[in-house]
């Protein structure tokens, strides 16, 4: 044994540590605590699923209703589009008549100039 070993021995003696009663008790409680935590976490999972259900059901119902309404409105919009199309055609016809009239006026006007 050299001097360094003596030093280390002295250190070991002065730094030995015995577990407190509270520490021993808390360590002995670990199996019970772990099992309880496992039970709580499985209950929590079920509660979480319920919470998610309560959160999602009204929102999904609302979205579904909006979707169905959109479909209904979309199908009704076909007739309206057809009416729009008809109106545009009529307008085009009128415009072409106006253009023709303008041409005539131009011709008349041109004749007048000459």
């Amino acid at each position, binding site marked *: 044994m*050299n*001097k*360094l*070993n003596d*030093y*280390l021995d*002295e*250190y*070991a003696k*002065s*730094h*030995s*540590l*015995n*577990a*407190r009663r509270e*520490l*021993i008790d*808390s*360590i*002995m409680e*670990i*199996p019970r605590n*772990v099992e309880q935590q496992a039970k709580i976490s499985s209950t929590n999972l079920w509660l979480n699923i319920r919470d998610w259900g309560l959160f999602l059901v009204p929102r999904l119902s609302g979205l579904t209703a909006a979707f169905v309404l959109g479909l209904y409105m979309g199908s009704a919009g076909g007739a309206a589009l057809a009416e729009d199309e008809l109106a545009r055609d009529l307008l085009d016809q009128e415009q072409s008549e106006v253009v023709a009239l303008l041409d005539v006026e131009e011709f008349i006007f041109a004749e007048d100039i000459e």
Partner: protein
Amino acid sequence: MYEGDNGNKKRWWRVPTDTLTDESLMLRIGEGDQVAYGILVNRHLNMNLGFAYKLLGNKAEAEEVMQEAFIRVWKHASRWDPSRKTRFTTWFYRVVTNLCYDVGRKRKPQENVEVLDRMASDEISADNVIAVDQRSKQVKRALEELPKRQHTAIMLCYFQGLSNREAADVMEVSLNALESYLVRARRNLADILQDDKDNLLKEIG
């Protein structure tokens, strides 16, 4: 349950607890046996608490490490594989060592400053008297200054009484690497313990 000669099942805890190996206790803990767990705690708590305390230099942290280590024992026991021939002591020292490293890593920089301040004041008082407690403080300071792996090697071989082979297994290094850590640790210790530097260096050669 152990089978008796007449085929009747005999309560395992009637067998003297000394004859039960740590590994067999782990198997029983894996089946949810709290008595086996208690025996294992009694066998290993104090020794490993001292080890954690010396590694961390802080009693509260060492206690937290021990709690976490035994939580791992309880949770890991059901997966304990006896065919791997791992010794419980080796596995448990490894768990404690790694937890201590984690605690060391998570320490705030301020805490390190506090330690350094305390070391400076210790250094002044150590100049005065050569008393055992003073020298212990010096050794503590010197050990804290060692690199982490050298510190662990010294702890396992000198204070926990593990063989070099066992310490190498705990640290997951080769025997040569472990011996190298020990030699360097002793040199560094002698270097840090300035007062007796020359004597110690002569002895180490």
